């Protein structure tokens, strides 16, 4: 019992320490965002690496998600009402409000988040981070700010693309397998989907982007113990980001609902 409490206490202290150092990192990212000339070429490079390179995977994910949603909804409504109803409505709501932002974030966390942690972690264990200090550059400014920028710029854009592609995937299944004409499918989408619904999904992506950037950069900067440590940090970062996307999704959604979005 005493041992268990000791363990818990230890975990709690560790958690507090992590949150504290994450807060310090955040402060320095904000500081350097405003206190220095932006590293344009680094920002562009990271946006390509984080955003553009994730596009194919996120597009595929949402395309097939849209397809399977249409299939299942079509089947279900056909069983209940003898014809597929509201397929476009359901597919678009599910994608725009939840699955688009969440699945895109999970894919980006797994793909780009891992790259960021591994890269920064390797730089940490091979003293390249220290070298940055000795050459007159703060790593927050040179490494973290461009990556935060890239996540915040590209994740919302990827999500918008994912929404469109997913809805198109639903349309494809609708017209080919459920004999819903495209015109009716899109009419179902546009009649019920409002600007507020789109904003609900869009605003969430900024929270996810920020969280993924925080987790992957923080794990990278605090990597210890050589190549093995880099592997460990990367796994931890990916798992934590993925879980936090889902946890955060609930809390941010209920907050947005509370403010009327």
């Amino acid at each position, binding site marked *: 019992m005493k041992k268990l409490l000791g363990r818990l206490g230890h975990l709690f202290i560790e958690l507090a320490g992590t949150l504290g150092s994450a807060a310090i990192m955040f402060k320095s990212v904000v500081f350097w965002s405003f206190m220095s000339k932006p590293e344009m070429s680094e920002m562009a490079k990271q946006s390509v690496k984080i955003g553009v390179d994730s596009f194919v995977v996120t597009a595929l994910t949402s395309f097939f998600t849209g397809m399977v949603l249409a299939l299942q909804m079509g089947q279900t409504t056909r069983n209940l009402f003898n014809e597929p109803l509201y397929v476009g409505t359901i597919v678009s709501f599910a994608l725009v409000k939840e699955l688009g932002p969440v699945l895109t974030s999970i894919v980006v966390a797994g793909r780009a988040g891992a790259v960021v942690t591994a890269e920064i972690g390797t730089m940490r264990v*091979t003293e*390249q981070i*220290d070298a940055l*200090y*000795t*050459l*007159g550059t703060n790593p927050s400014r040179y490494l973290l700010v461009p990556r935060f920028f890239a996540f915040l710029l590209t994740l919302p854009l990827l999500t918008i693309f994912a929404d469109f592609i997913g809805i198109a995937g639903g349309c494809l299944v609708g017209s080919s397998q459920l004999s819903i004409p495209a015109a009716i499918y899109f009419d179902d989408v546009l009649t019920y989907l409002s600007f507020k619904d789109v904003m609900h999904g869009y605003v969430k992506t900024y929270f996810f982007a920020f969280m993924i950037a925080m987790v992957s950069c923080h794990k990278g900067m605090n990597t210890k113990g050589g190549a093995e440590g880099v592997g460990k940090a990367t796994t931890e970062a990916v798992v934590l980001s993925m879980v936090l996307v889902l946890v955060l999704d609930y809390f941010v959604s209920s907050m947005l609902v509370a403010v009327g979005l």
Partner: protein
Amino acid sequence: MIEVKNLCKAFGERHILDGMSVKIQEGDLFSVIGPSGTGKSTFIKCLIRLLDPDSGEILVDGEDIASTKDEFRLARIRRKFGYLFQEGALFDSMNVFENVSFGLKYLTDIPKSEYPRIVREKLALVGLKDVEKLKPSELSGGMKKRVALARSIAVEPKYILYDEPTTGLDPVMTGMVRDMITDMRDKLGVTSVVVTHDLKLALNISSRVAMMYGGRFVECSAPEDFKKSANPEVQEFMRISGIK
């Protein structure tokens, strides 16, 4: 001049630096020796605040930097130092040219058009030619160290800190690196701090040698006097290093 007074640093319960004091004069080639794991790297990292000491003073040209939180002030002091990392710490996403010119961009107002000339000049100083386009992964261990040295002297620092400059190199490369260190002093007039477990190297090139043990300097003197030291740790270390 670098003056260290009563410097302490602990990792958790382990007191690695435990009241270190030393004065390093202009033009000195000062070596810190001691077995691996005694905290030599910790010591020079504290000197330029890559690690934060727990207590004590570090006066660089009279200015205490041991506890300042001011980023810009720290950057200004670090500007005076070149640092040769144990494994070189070259940026592996950049080629040799970008590595060597990296500090020029952030530490000087030199126009970009001058970079190729400066890079060529510094690479020549460390005995390299036509390697600008290569990536660090395409260099041998010794070349990496030389490129890393070129990178740290590109901005013409007043002090250079060397962390284990010869560890992991073959005898020929060791000789070359040794000449490189003395060259830097003779040609550029820099003050050097060399951290190493290679006692032969230290006795060979230094103007003063200090032995680190138990978190302090137990001996600090010119090489001739160092060899005659009565300190038991020094004698033991000389014995295992095969000197006398």
